[in-house]
């Protein structure tokens, strides 16, 4: 309808940067894709609060600043606790272009399925960084793969990550996002799990207090596949993380969990969407949000069950703790059910610390500040323990939560 509409002003710096960048070394198909994505982004512009999915997210810090794409390379740091087995390939986007272009191409097809989210399109137009992990069928990568995305020196970063797991393969990935200074990170991760593949995907967003982070992780699950995503949100003045999972094959299981800890004037949204398009799928979602000072936490959770996706079993929980008179929480746990033989439920709570528990602790001699910290930690750690198996990973996440509480200094 608005094909002729003027280019949205907020998109201009990004489009200019896009045009200025030469892509001589890239294959024609990729250049063409970037161009298409940029054109579509120009058409859509940034989302506004009039759009239902963005009504709680105040993008002002993003629209009012300019974040031209930052072209410093090698901002990604990949660490392996052990050797990669023969069936696994891991490399940066640049390496993938050189050595495994077909993997990258398949992954980009995937991302296009994610639909026309403006920021995903912008990422598709501009990405340079990121990594590709491709695992052959039957291969198990035992040691966690740790990836740190750094955004330093201002401007915007558009990392693109691709994870492809063949049938019955498995891996654990820990991605940490560290935006520094007045930077904007716009990350996209796409995951495709073959039949009975199993991915543990831990994401920690601990950007600096002036940074902005918008992220999307999208996973497609074949029959019997299992995707476990844990998202710890600590940093950034403005952040939004979308986690989408599509149950494409029968009996796939999806576990989404997260802890968001906010203070000062942080704004953070966690938006999940699980689309049950095949029967017998299972979803377990637990998201906890602790909001202090003037911060604002948002949870948007949607579970859809398409016609025919019988025997779907989905549970979603959103729990929110408000610690200060000016803290704010919005939560919208949504169900869209189009099959009758399903078990679906959701629950949401908002409140402050349980007064009885607080008294119980104090009646045993623990002072109020310590008792409060203990309960806040318990609130957050509960979600970690439910989602992440005991071991170094869980300890790492617990330590991050502990560190956040210590900063509160009671």
């Amino acid at each position, binding site marked *: 309808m608005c094909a002729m509409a003027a280019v949205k002003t907020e998109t201009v710096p990004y489009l200019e940067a896009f045009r200025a960048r030469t892509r001589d070394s890239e294959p024609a198909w990729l250049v063409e894709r970037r161009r298409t994505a940029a054109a579509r982004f120009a058409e859509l512009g940034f989302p506004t609060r009039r759009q239902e999915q963005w009504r709680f997210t105040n993008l002002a810090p993003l629209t009012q600043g300019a974040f031209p794409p930052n072209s410093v390379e090698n901002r990604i740091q990949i660490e392996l606790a052990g050797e990669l087995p023969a069936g696994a390939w891991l490399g940066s986007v640049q390496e993938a272009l050189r050595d495994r272009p077909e993997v990258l191409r398949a992954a980009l097809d995937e991302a296009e399925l994610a639909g026309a989210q403006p920021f995903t399109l912008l990422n598709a137009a501009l990405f340079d960084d990121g990594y590709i992990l491709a695992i052959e069928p039957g291969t198990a990568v035992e040691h966690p793969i740790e990836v740190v995305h750094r955004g330093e020196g201002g401007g915007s970063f558009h990392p693109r990550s691709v994870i492809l797991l063949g049938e019955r393969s498995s891996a654990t990935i820990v991605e940490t996002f560290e935006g520094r200074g007045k930077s904007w990170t716009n990350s996209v991760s796409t995951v495709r799990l073959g039949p009975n593949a199993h991915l543990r995907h831990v994401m920690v967003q601990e950007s600096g207090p002036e940074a902005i982070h918008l992220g999307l992780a999208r996973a497609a699950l074949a029959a019997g596949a299992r995707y476990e995503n844990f998202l710890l949100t600590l940093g950034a003045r403005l952040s939004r993380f979308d986690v989408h999972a599509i149950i494409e094959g029968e009996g796939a299981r999806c576990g989404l969990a997260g802890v968001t800890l906010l203070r000062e004037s942080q704004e953070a949204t966690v938006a999940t969407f699980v689309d049950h398009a095949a029967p017998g799928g299972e979803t377990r979602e637990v998201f906890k949000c602790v909001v202090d000072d003037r911060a604002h936490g948002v949870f948007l959770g949607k579970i859809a069950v398409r*016609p025919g996706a019988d025997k779907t079993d989905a549970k979603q929980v959103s729990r929110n703790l408000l610690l200060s008179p000016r803290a704010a929480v919005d939560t919208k*746990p949504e169900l869209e059910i189009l*099959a*009758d033989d399903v078990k679906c439920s959701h*629950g949401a709570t908002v409140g*402050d610390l349980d007064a009885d528990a607080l008294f119980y602790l104090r009646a045993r001699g623990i002072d109020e500040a310590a008792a409060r910290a203990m309960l806040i930690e318990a609130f957050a750690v509960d979600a970690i323990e439910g989602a992440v198996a005991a071991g170094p990973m869980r300890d790492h996440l617990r330590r991050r939560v502990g560190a956040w509480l210590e900063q509160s200094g009671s």
Partner: protein
Amino acid sequence: MTSTHDALDTVRTLTSEGYKYGFVTDIEADEAPPGLNEDTVRFISAKKGEPQWLLEWRLAAFRNWQKMEQPDWAKLRIAPIDYQAATYYSAPKKAAGPKSLDEVDPEILKTYEKLGIPLHERAALAGVAVDAVFDSVSVATTFKETLAELGIIFCSFGEAVREHPELVRKYLGSVVPQGDNFFAALNSAVFSDGSFAYIPAGVRCPMELSTYFRINAAKSGQFERTLIVADVGAYVSYLEGCTAPQRDENQLHAAVVELIALEGAQIKYSTVQNWYPGDAEGRGGIYNFVTKRGACRGKRSKISWTQVETGSAITWKYPSCILEGDESVGEFYSVAITNNLQQADTGTKMIHLGRDTSSTIISKGISAGRGQNTYRGLVRVQPKAQNARNYTQCDSLLIGKRCGAHTVPYIEVRNPSARIEHEATTSKVSEDQLFYCQQRGLSQEDALSLIVNGFCKEVLKELPMEFAVEAQKLLAVSLEGSVG
């Protein structure tokens, strides 16, 4: 399995009674020419002999409406509505000011009898004061004198404008302003009649006040307006029932209900909505776009909405409570059924403004056939609403594979002392449950009715007794042919 299916088919054949209330009363109507412009608004206002201020109010609403667009955020598929094709005023000609029941057109009285509410008996036996709205004009009000002795005003909206202009002017639009939303603005411009009730301070209304709405004239929209004011410490229970005749085309119903409860006052508002839902193929049926909102203005005031929504092709309705007074209470109990191609997007808004306010939401959605049923609710706790409490439970029941049940709750909290709990479940009526009941001797139909009534019982128990019985019957009728 086949035997179950055979049994279901038999049940379906035996019970496909169809819409019981689908008959047309043949009386001459006094109609406005179709179409909507300022002249239509002036025509309606003049026809009703309204004062200038009300005409101005309507015109302001109309001008607002012209600038607005029909909302599209609900999970509803609505065929385009031609607002210029509808008739905005339709009054039964012989109904010009009946002084008593004897003066009421016998045809109309017969219609009520078919509906199962003979005014004489019903009023006398049940102690119900009925202000019946036939199409748009109130035709009879009973028990007026009994009420008058207590100082209770219960009359048609038109009469209230003439007899109690100061009350109407004070409260009209104070809860739902003219420009509140597209449909409310439309109603404010063209509303033809409705009910008005005022319960003076300290008075407990001794009987249930009741209005039966009915859309009769073809192609006529119905835009009634209800305003109920409970003064300090007053109590009133108000019943609203709606039915409409069977027609192929869609009819528009855009009502506005405003409730005001002052300090310590309580208003209980119960609705059984049984407008024509359209046929099994989705032809015809009422488009029901209703704005209902209550303001708990005073300390410890309480407003309770109970609704059983079984009719209409499309229902768009969110009876809400603005909890302004400290310690005020809002409640919403709802059963919504969609069968065949019916669509419902309904729920509530609980806006907590005062201290120690509390709200309860119990919603039961039942989807059958190809029906689509959405609960959409908002619980908002504003910064000054210290110690606000909300409990929400919304359950969905699915019957069959082609229907949908959706839950869209919004929880917005701006005060840490709030305690908000929301729970939702989705389940189905299983063949096992039906079989178990049948094995114990119940018919398939009774078994389904039993299960559905059990599912809804927390809501049905909120209805006044006689309404509850009617509602249970309606649930059974609405679900006919849905199992299989």
